[in-house]
């Protein structure tokens, strides 16, 4: 990758001029060293360079380009570990057996860690050593962030979200947009109640692109007579700090939601149809703030499936013909939300026709983890989504559903590019359309 395609960012603390090469390396090393712990060391030490992780990665499968081998993507992190914290680190340094990571290397790795990885975790399932490669990639991203090498789009959105609570400027604040969606779809938007059992969040992707999904969320919650509220100061589910690799920013962005949930004494925080938002809040937020969350985090499909099991939710049959369902990686493979979407589908009389690879082994959309936001990654992303389209087409499905708005957006983007015949639909919207008595 040539230098001109790599964006350089300001010093994170001061927002000043882009970092010099030495500062870049120092920043990366600081982050890598902080990320090294017993677990990451065990993973880094275990790799035998068998290369099988490439065979699980949709970026490698779509391109057959060896640079997309997942474990290769963590090479700068591994290099730092060997030199700084490995069992024989002094020897590696004294005898220059493992060279210091260079600024050039870090720049080259930006493409590998951000543009060509969704942190989907498929590589973690194929590794014969049992290494969770995706977790290492997430840690390696943090090094690049502190080197000022997070892609511009992710960096700017993360910075904006950290500052304002929403990842970008909008013509009207998202709070007003939410209320406008309520008026447009004739559904009441519960907002800023001082106290509620359930706090709702919304994907920025839905606010911007799929307002019907936002309305669907409000509609199903109203149908369930749930004591719930959105909070103006903690509205957006996505965490661009997580995408960009900014650990401190990720923590601050999560904390904004956590504080709002605390303020309204919520017992449950609902993550809507957004996979990476679920990972960030469900599995990472407690670790980042250093204590357990005082509420439960549930994906909307989990919450609805629980309501279904408890008899609070009843759904009408949906006549959709042959239907395929895409399992979002962060919900299923990395999040364990395996049965909830299918229980909801079943309740509407839908038995999905599965793609060849599904549930935990599902091939990714290619857009998650911030890749969808990175403009220059589009050609590569299209090659990945094309693979996915072939799989979906092979099911003969007339209807195609998913439960992650970033997946949906990635498919829509691919649909435009390839003039694909299917239209990805939201499972939540489908549920909202088939509420019994609704």
């Amino acid at each position: 990758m040539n230098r001109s395609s790599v964006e350089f960012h300001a010093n994170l603390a001061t927002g000043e001029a882009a970092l010099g090469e030495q500062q870049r390396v120092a920043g990366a090393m600081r982050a890598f060293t902080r990320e090294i712990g017993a677990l990451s060391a065990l993973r880094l030490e275990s790799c035998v360079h068998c290369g099988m992780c490439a065979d699980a990665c949709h970026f490698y499968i779509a391109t057959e380009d060896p640079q997309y081998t997942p474990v290769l993507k963590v090479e700068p992190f591994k290099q730092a570990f060997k030199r700084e914290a490995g069992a024989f680190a002094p020897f590696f340094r004294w005898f220059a057996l493992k060279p210091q990571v260079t600024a050039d290397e870090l720049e080259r790795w930006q493409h590998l860690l951000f543009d060509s990885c969704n942190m989907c975790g498929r590589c973690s399932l194929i590794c014969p050593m049992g290494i969770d490669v995706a977790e290492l990639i997430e840690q390696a991203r943090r090094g690049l962030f502190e080197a000022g090498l997070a892609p511009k789009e992710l960096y700017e959105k993360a910075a904006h979200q950290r500052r304002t609570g929403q990842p970008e400027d909008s013509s009207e604040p998202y709070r007003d947009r939410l209320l406008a969606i309520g008026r447009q779809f004739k559904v009441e938007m519960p907002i800023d109640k001082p106290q509620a059992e359930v706090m709702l969040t919304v994907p920025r992707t839905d606010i911007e692109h799929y307002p019907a999904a936002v309305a669907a969320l409000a509609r199903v919650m109203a149908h369930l007579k749930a004591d719930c509220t959105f909070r103006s100061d903690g509205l957006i589910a996505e965490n661009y700090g997580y995408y960009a690799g900014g650990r401190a920013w990720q923590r601050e962005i999560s904390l904004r939601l956590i504080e709002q949930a605390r303020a309204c004494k919520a017992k449950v925080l609902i993550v809507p149809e957004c996979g990476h938002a679920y990972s960030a809040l469900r599995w990472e937020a407690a670790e980042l703030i250093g204590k357990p969350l005082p509420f439960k985090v549930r994906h909307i499909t989990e919450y609805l499936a629980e309501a279904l099991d408890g008899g609070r939710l009843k759904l009408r049959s949906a006549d959709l013909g042959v239907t395929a369902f895409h399992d979002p990686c962060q919900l299923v493979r990395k999040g364990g939300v395996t049965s909830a979407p299918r229980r909801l589908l079943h309740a509407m009389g839908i038995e999905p026709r599965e793609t060849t690879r599904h549930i935990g082994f599902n091939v990714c959309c290619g857009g998650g983890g911030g890749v969808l936001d990175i403009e220059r990654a589009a050609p590569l992303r299209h090659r990945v989504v094309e693979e996915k389209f072939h799989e979906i087409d092979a099911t003969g499905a007339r209807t195609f559903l998913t439960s992650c708005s970033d997946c949906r957006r990635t498919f829509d983007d691919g649909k435009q590019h390839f003039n694909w015949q299917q239209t990805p639909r939201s499972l939540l919207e489908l549920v909202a359309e088939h509420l019994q008595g609704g």
Partner: protein
Amino acid sequence: MDLVDFARGPALKVAFVIFFIGVVWRLVNVLLLRHKRNLSEPRRSVGASVWGGLKAMGSRSWPHPEFIKRTITGEALGYSYHIGLFIVILLFAPHIIFFGSFIGMRWPALPNGLVTIFAVITVTLFVAVLFRRLAHPVLRRLSNFDDFFSWFVVALLLVTGLMATAHVGAPYPTILGLHILSFDLLLIWYPFGKLMHAFYIFPTRAVDGYLLTRKGAPS
């Protein structure tokens, strides 16, 4: 002191000390690093997660069916030469006598001729493994000194062993001495390179199996 006495005397002792201290230090170094606490609400109980970790120790020995079409060559080669190595190292009568003298026990051996056939097959597989590492774009891209030197150390042991069995290349005592020296070299290199994977494989599978099961995710 002739070559054989040197190889199985002081050289072996030094090699074993390096092996032992090196392996222990490499494992302890991992344990001494910071441990992350899991504070998120688990989806599965501790018991179920531990069971998930234990299961992953075995289940990762074979790829999930979704992957096997793409990994079958690597799996087949990997399994074949590992099995070959185990047979040659552990079921060859002179090796049983050698190892038995240290641990004070013996076990049944396979006929020498059969083990020699396995050794020839294993050496052939080793050549194939090297060829694949050089030819496969992913493996070539990933490979470093450790990959090639670890291969060389094990291959040297196999080849000198075959030469000693066949009495070719040099007088028997010399070639036997070289064979034992190559074993010493393997012990010395062991803690520094990827051969350590034998000690890491099960803890890594168990820990990540535990963590994935804790989330209710497939492992």
